[in-house]
């Protein structure tokens, strides 16, 4: 469903993505792991059009976001890009809830404004999503009144309200303590059970091992290994082992 081919991206002289390719199929959960600075966030941000790639192909559901023409990325026209935006969801490490809107308003904002959904329908759907993440009794709370774990669950519910085909997570639990991490991971496990397609950048190896269908190990802007968890965690590749088990040669 999602195809990224040979994606390159530099910030000035710094090459951050050095030919990343990744395919994600429907209903798959892909965990993206790798050391700090390996380009995981940048890759997700390129998929969500928060950064522009220098070259490479990105396709979603048969729609082309960009492809390489004369060694440079050529982006589709804006109407097509918009369609792709609507098929992608993104959950940030820092939640990025809208502080001036309460939980319910955060959830209905995009359905009302972007999808032009009738208000009562948007509210009904928002409550449904809130019950999924276990926060039905918090709809009148403002973001500053929520714990980090609650805020992240609201952010997930907000993304779900747009019915994305793929949901991307960039270290969704890195700002949380272990207890709050658990409640967010529980929500993500439920989503995986409901066959949500997900790409999750994470340092939670436990989660990657249990929930992911595939684990992708990135280093230095390249994909080093891409395999089912049992295979990847038993990898013989020294770089992979060094990252996962902290082994030194």
């Amino acid at each position, binding site marked *: 469903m999602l195809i990224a081919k040979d994606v390159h991206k530099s910030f000035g002289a710094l090459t951050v993505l050095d030919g990343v390719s990744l395919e994600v199929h429907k209903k798959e959960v892909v965990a993206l792991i790798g050391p700090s600075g390996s380009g995981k966030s940048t890759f997700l941000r390129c998929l*969500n*059009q*928060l950064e522009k790639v220098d070259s490479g192909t990105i396709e979603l559901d048969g729609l082309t976001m960009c492809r390489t023409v004369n060694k440079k990325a050529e982006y589709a026209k804006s109407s097509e890009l*918009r369609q792709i*935006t*609507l098929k*992608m*969801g*993104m959950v*940030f490490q*820092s939640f*990025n*809830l*809208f*502080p*001036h809107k309460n939980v319910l308003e955060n959830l209905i*904002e*995009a359905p009302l*404004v*972007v*999808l032009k959904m009738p208000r009562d329908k948007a509210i009904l759907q928002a409550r449904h999503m809130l019950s999924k993440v276990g926060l039905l009794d918090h709809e009148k709370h*403002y*973001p*500053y009144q929520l714990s980090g774990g609650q805020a992240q669950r609201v952010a997930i519910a*907000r*993304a779900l309200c*747009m019915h994305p085909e793929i949901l991307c997570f960039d270290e969704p639990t890195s700002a949380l303590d272990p207890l709050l991490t658990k409640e967010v991971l529980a929500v993500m496990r439920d989503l995986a059970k409901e066959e949500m397609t997900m790409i999750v950048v994470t340092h939670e190896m436990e989660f990657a091992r249990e929930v992911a269908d595939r684990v992708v190990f990135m280093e230095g802007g390249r994909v080093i290994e891409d395999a089912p968890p049992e295979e990847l965690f038993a990898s013989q590749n020294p770089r992979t082992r060094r990252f996962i088990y902290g082994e030194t040669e």
Partner: protein
Amino acid sequence: MQFRIFTDPEALFNLIKTLATGIMPTIRIFVFTILLSIPLGIMLAAGRVSKYRVLRTPISVYIYIIRSTPLMLQLLFSYFLISSLEWSPVLQLIFGDKRSQFPIRCIVYMFSLNYAAYFAEIFRGGIQSIHEGQREAAKVLGLTRVQSFFRIQLPQIFKTVMPSLTNEFVTLVKDTSIAKVISVSLDNRTILHVAEKQVSALASIEPYILVLIFFLVFNGVVEQGCKLIERSMNYYR
């Protein structure tokens, strides 16, 4: 100092009645200046932080010129410059009739151009105070840049800049007195225009005392109004 008028109820009543004719024109300058300068200030601020140098540079120069020169001089200069021009249909469209409407419009426009520069700097700070993540969250949810600006960023910007706006509003109330350097048509005379006539006609400074009181009350109301607005945005952090 003798209070000839304050001790004579009838004279005092007549003076107050006369000065009162200047209240609405003064308030009008204040209100119209704010209505024009805030949107203009927001636009200038947006241009000031844009990625296009062709927008940034002229706006910076504009803000520098406006903030470095006196408003009174700007007003006199624009007034005499424009009144020296041949009254073309374009000028007629912008400033109205040269004798009856031009002076007051020139005042309001120049005030707005001046205050917009100050507001632009304030809003620029406000725009930059918004976390990049807010824009990004709005974008991945599918909001357009315009929707994101007006629905997500602007409400938060107003909350952060409101204390600075209050300062400018208070200053603007006092700056309406600068309009006095331009002669305006009868029904546009500000309270200071009127008071000055009275001071010389009555050979007394008592009208000025009443004008002082007017400004105290006017600014008291403005400050309370701003406090209410600030409080209405206190429901979140």
